[in-house]
């Protein structure tokens, strides 16, 4: 598969790679900040997918949807970091393994 011209398939492969990298980061890193960053990667993988298929099918719906996803991602990051700051003040740590009270 040649690199030129760049087709929709390239975008799908990029998107899939980003998704896998994000998922791996989410599952493997213990720092919650990094985990949030991994989630951003996953969301951006989706965005790339949406924009790519929007171009492919010549429909603007996908781009609009991508903007919505960015908005939601910003909100999620804000809320997530806010919770994280409160958590750090309360527990003195941002390591996910040490915050395991929510069980049983």
């Amino acid at each position, binding site marked *: 598969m040649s690199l030129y011209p760049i087709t929709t398939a390239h975008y799908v492969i990029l998107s899939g790679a980003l998704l896998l990298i994000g998922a791996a980061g989410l599952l493997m890193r213990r720092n919650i900040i990094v*985990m949030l960053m991994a989630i951003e990667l996953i969301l951006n993988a989706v965005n790339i997918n949406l924009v790519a298929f929007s171009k492919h099918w010549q429909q603007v719906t996908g781009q609009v949807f991508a903007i919505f996803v960015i908005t939601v991602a910003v909100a999620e990051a804000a809320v997530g970091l806010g919770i994280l700051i409160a958590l750090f003040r309360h527990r003195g740590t941002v390591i996910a393994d040490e915050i395991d009270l929510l*069980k*049983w």
Partner: protein
Amino acid sequence: MVNLVANFWWIPLYPLFGAAIIAFIRRGASVIAPLMVALSFIHGLIVYSSPRGGTLDHTLTQWMPGLPFRFAADDLSLLMVLIVSGIGLLIHIYSIGYMAKEPGFWRYFACLNLFVFFMLLLVLASNLAVLFAGWEGVGLASYLLIGFHHDRPTVNRNANKAFLYNRAGDAGFLLGTLILLSIAGNVEFSTINKLPASGLTLAAALLLALGATGKSAQLPLFVWLPDAMVGPTPVSALIHAATMVTAGIYLFARLAPFLAANPDAGLVIAILGAATSLIAATIAAVEHDIKRILAYSTVSQLGLMFLAAGLGATEAAMFHVTTHAFFKALLFLTAGNIIHALHGEQDIRYMGGLRDKMPWTFRLMTLAALSLAGFPGLAGFFSKDAILVAALKYPVFFAIALSVSFLTGAYSSRMLWAVFFGTYQRDAHEAHGNMLHTLWPLAIGSALAGYFGPHGELAWGVMLTSALVSLSGLYFGRSLRIPVVLKQLFARRWFINDAYEAVLVHAVTRKGARAANWFDSNLVDLIPHVPSSATTTLGLLLGWFDRFVVDGLVRLTAALFSLSSYPLRLVQSGRIQHYALAMVLTLALTLGWYLLA
């Protein structure tokens, strides 16, 4: 116009209302109390002087089967009514002055009125049950009055002592009454006086006599009367002259035919009276407290009355009650004046020379003391003479009565010399107003009452002997020398009080309390202990059952759930990445299955 004679039973009610009103409104006592007693006196005088035709009686209500609440009045009752209300009236008026500055003025007069009420109830009773109501009532009223100064030391103890010794006698009285009730079916005096003699009636007579010894302060129960001197002096006068101690003599006079039918009981009464009379007179001869001298004098004189009543001479006994009421009331009230003037001093060793300071008190007290001693021509002479005549048949009793007569003269003159002659020791002032002028009727009675007694044929020999004995007593009284051993014996009151204290108060109360404590903690407590330990054991068993069986089922159920949920709980690790892994794997599997399918 109401018929005052038929309604003679109102006589006791006036002071009862007086006591109730004073206790309720708590003021105006100095008017109400004497007024009520005066009403009783006037009513009594009207009934006494009216033609009556035999014994009056009035049944108020049927109290219990065989025990009507019935009043009766004959000459004897009405004589007592006049003594009680008359002397009582004078003492009420005297008290207005004597108690003027005391706190609790109204309480004093309410109790005084109550006292007179109960005594009038006692003398107007038609049967032993009603008499017993009055009998108990005077005990109560005397307790309240003896304990009037309840904030002073020893007063409460002495008031309790008076009450308890009276109770001991009252128990005998009640038993005697119950025996008579079981024999005769009722306890009307008319019935009892006709009972044929038997062992039971003798026992009843002795038990009634025990009651009388309690109320009239005779052996074996006389020790309360001298200690009752802690009460206000007019109360002592009332107790000694009019109410309370005369009740025993009245009872014997009332039951004279009954006692005559049981001469053994009469003999016991006479022996008790003679012994008490002599013992009390010897104690009076060495006592220093003026009120106690008078108290022992009363005990001694009551002993003479018991002697006469026991020998069947109830007329003589009642005669002496009457004259004694006058001169003993006068003695106590003049003693009250002296104590009042000396601000509460009662010891005759600290008195002396009061003749010039209190001339009228001196004259009146001398008159009363001479009357008490049996100075020829005064009231006490005639009544004591009547008792001596009654004792003439029994040489021992006659000798004792003469010795008592001598001792009476001796302690009377000893007291007079100590109080009124010699050197001044304290400043004093003569009494005035109520506290002096109420004494005149008593003085007249002390001088002249003897001429209105029941005179039989005059026994000149006895009269002469009695007069000589009294006069020699009066003469030797000033310089009476008693051997030290005897003096010690007399001063310790023949150790009778000490013996009672040792036996009754210490042995019975201390050891008895210990025995009662043992009984209570070991036997009586079994009653609550057995059910309580049964309950405790049952409670333990039930608690065990509850804890292990009932709770066990609950906990078993909980444990089963807990156990079965254990594998599932392992999934909930609390670690966010485990959950994320589960999500990712699920998505991947779903996607993979979708793609492959």
